[in-house]
């Protein structure tokens, strides 16, 4: 079976972003970009399913600017077979991405579509669920364990209070949580090999999709600053402060 994996190029998770002084957004010029951490887990899971003989092909896709090809190369180096870039310079919101992914998964006839649970830039946590809704197929979000057998996916999900397990008929959409797996490091030989793999580039227009943003960002601001705290000398001083100054205990 074929697995489609969606990845996103985002500001590296270690970067502390700064809000632009005109409040139009965050400053991402000259900032290190990487693959969204949850998407790395998604690619890893797909490649493991291929290594286990369950999947026959892993196709990785992304939507965005030309530089997203770097992100696709990383996924190819992890072990994806080929890649598709839907090139667009405009802002892409989750609904637009879900529509793009719908068109691609129908074209590719993917049985399993794996996404990260959320992107660490917009923190939306929507695209996978939206895609499942548009395709009218079942979804398993926040997956920490995936078993594919007998034309069915059995997925353990991280929910509030613990874990829950559900079974889905295929095709299905799965979104990854942090504990699903530990993504492998890409090795130099695999990076070299990845350069030979193909990246198809298509335009949203070719897919016949309206990608206009639905939400308008009016402004982006710094969160309120916390007032500077104090360092206490010892436990006694700490207890005294909590009791008499902060009055929280």
């Amino acid at each position, binding site marked *: 079976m074929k697995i489609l994996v969606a990845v996103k190029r985002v500001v590296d998770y270690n970067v502390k972003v700064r809000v632009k002084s005109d409040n139009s957004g965050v400053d991402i010029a000259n900032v290190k970009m990487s693959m969204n951490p949850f998407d790395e887990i998604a690619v890893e899971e797909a490649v493991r399913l291929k290594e286990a003989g369950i999947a026959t092909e892993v196709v990785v896709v992304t939507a965005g600017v030309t530089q997203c090809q770097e992100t696709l190369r990383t996924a190819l180096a992890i072990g994806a077979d080929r890649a598709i870039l839907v090139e667009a310079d405009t802002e892409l919101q989750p609904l637009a991405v879900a529509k793009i992914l719908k068109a691609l998964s129908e074209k590719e006839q993917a049985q399993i579509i794996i996404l990260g649970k959320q992107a660490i830039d917009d923190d939306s946590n929507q695209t996978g669920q939206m895609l499942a809704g548009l395709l009218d197929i079942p*979804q398993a979000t926040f997956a920490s364990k995936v078993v594919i057998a007998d034309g069915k996916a059995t997925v353990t999900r991280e929910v509030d209070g613990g874990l829950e397990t559900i079974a889905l008929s295929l095709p299905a959409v799965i979104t990854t949580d*942090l504990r699903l797996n530990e993504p492998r490091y890409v090795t130099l030989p695999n990076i070299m090999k990845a350069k030979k793999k193909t990246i198809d580039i298509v335009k949203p227009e070719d897919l016949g999709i309206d990608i206009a943003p639905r939400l308008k960002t009016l402004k982006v601001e710094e969160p309120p600053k916390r007032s500077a705290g104090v360092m206490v000398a010892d436990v006694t001083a700490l207890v005294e402060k909590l009791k008499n100054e902060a009055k929280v205990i």
Partner: protein
Amino acid sequence: MAALVISEHDNQSLKAATFNAVAAALQCSPEVDVLVAGNSADVVATAASQIAGVRKVIQIDALNLADQLAEPLAAQILSLAGNYSYLLAPATASGKNVMPRVAAKLDVAQLSDITKVVSADTFERPIYAGNAIATVQSSDAVKVITVRTTGFDPVAATGGSAVIEKVAATDSAGKSAFVGRELTKSDRPELTAAKIIVSGGRGLGSGEKYQELVVPLADKLGAALGASRAAVDAGYVPNDYQVGQTGKIVAPQLYVAVGISGAIQHLAGMKDSKVIVAINKDPEAPIFGVADYGLVADLFTAVPELTKALS
């Protein structure tokens, strides 16, 4: 211009996050209805009818709604969507699971994790792990929203007297099935609703030390237990203890961080706490940048001392 709040429940009891979502809904519209979709959830519907400010409770009972799977639940919400301008759910695992599916079917954008209602169509939400606050405007006819519970004070659980209207479930033959559930047992206050939270990180070194140091301190304070991702990944505690961008978002009166360095992703989950206390031996740890009270000390001596001082 009515609003429908999707209640969070386990068929037995109404979860507290619902009250925060109702609070946000009341800022959008004076006409707020609550949906209780479940299996024999009469007790929940009764509880929902007593929430202050609620106009009507819509109860839908069906076997396949028992486990709140996304597919049947979304189908029920969609069957009612035509009557509402706002569909809201708390931004919990369940709300995050179902609402985007509903939004996509309605062909509208979703507003995730809102922290403030600015006006009828404009909302604030944190992005980049809480390092920026975006003000966004929606032009969609129906606003599908998940509510960050710590952003809104809960409405009163009593004082209301809404009518309960039982509605038949629409057909929603599922392509998914519930298999099982494994919940962490705890007598403590729920993490997201606790007044005080004591959280442990990698600095503890082991699960035994977490039990030995963090748990007694939490007992003394009547606190909920939390953890950093490092502590969860190392297996000290179950993963539903995790506070942060990818775990739970909390805002208690007092947050005590023990052996937690304070990575961006952890701070995203707790920096709206009223008072933050950090105990760490590294004076350079970023957690001290947000702490109201910082103690540079070895946690293995400072934490037992603190527990003792509170006796």
